[in-house]
């Protein structure tokens, strides 16, 4: 692993996830699909973050077991953890709102409900 591989796989996966989710958020009209797009975007960003901290051949940064020379960076892991919980919270609130909207309008199409356009 001395050669620099131009497309490192986790970064490539993160880029794909983010690109697809932006497409979904912009072009899909179903509200559930929109929420799935946001969830995928979150997954992509989280994957990017946690991939930043990897050291080749490293293990979890916990002293119960391994010495410090082979530890991956701890901060991205902490950030990712925080971000995952935050996204769970956001998704819960979004889904509740969508259930409520469905009760009111009987539809999940963002173009059918009057003011969601734009």
């Amino acid at each position, binding site marked *: 692993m001395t050669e620099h591989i*131009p497309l490192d796989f986790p*970064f490539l996966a993160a*880029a794909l996830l983010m690109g697809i989710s932006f497409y979904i958020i*912009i072009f899909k009209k179903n509200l559930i699909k929109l929420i799935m797009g946001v969830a995928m975007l979150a997954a992509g960003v989280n994957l990017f973050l946690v991939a930043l901290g990897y050291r080749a051949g490293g293990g979890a940064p916990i*002293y119960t077991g391994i010495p410090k020379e082979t*530890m991956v960076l*701890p901060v991205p892991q902490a950030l990712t953890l925080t971000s995952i919980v935050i996204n769970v919270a956001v998704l819960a609130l979004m889904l509740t709102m969508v259930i409520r909207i469905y009760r009111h309008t009987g539809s999940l199409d963002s173009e059918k409900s009057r003011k969601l356009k734009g």
Partner: protein
Amino acid sequence: MKRQVTGLILLLVLVAFLVWGMHLTHPFGYPGASDMDDYMIENAQEETGSNNVVAAVLFDYRLLDTLGEATILFTAVMGVLLLVRASKRKENNS
């Protein structure tokens, strides 16, 4: 149909841009600078007494983030319970 074609082109451009951008970051597995993280790995046991460096980061070095994270969970629970509530009180309850 036209919308879909535009969308697909946009998607390809976006993914290409992101892949190009990713290519600019450091290669996977070889982070460049790591001063902050090295400090934490070095001193976590002594300063916080925790074997788990991630736990030390979460609950000591970056405690405010975790507090914010817990707050966000609390906020979301408040929000969900606010949204599912009955919009009018029941008669026998008031």
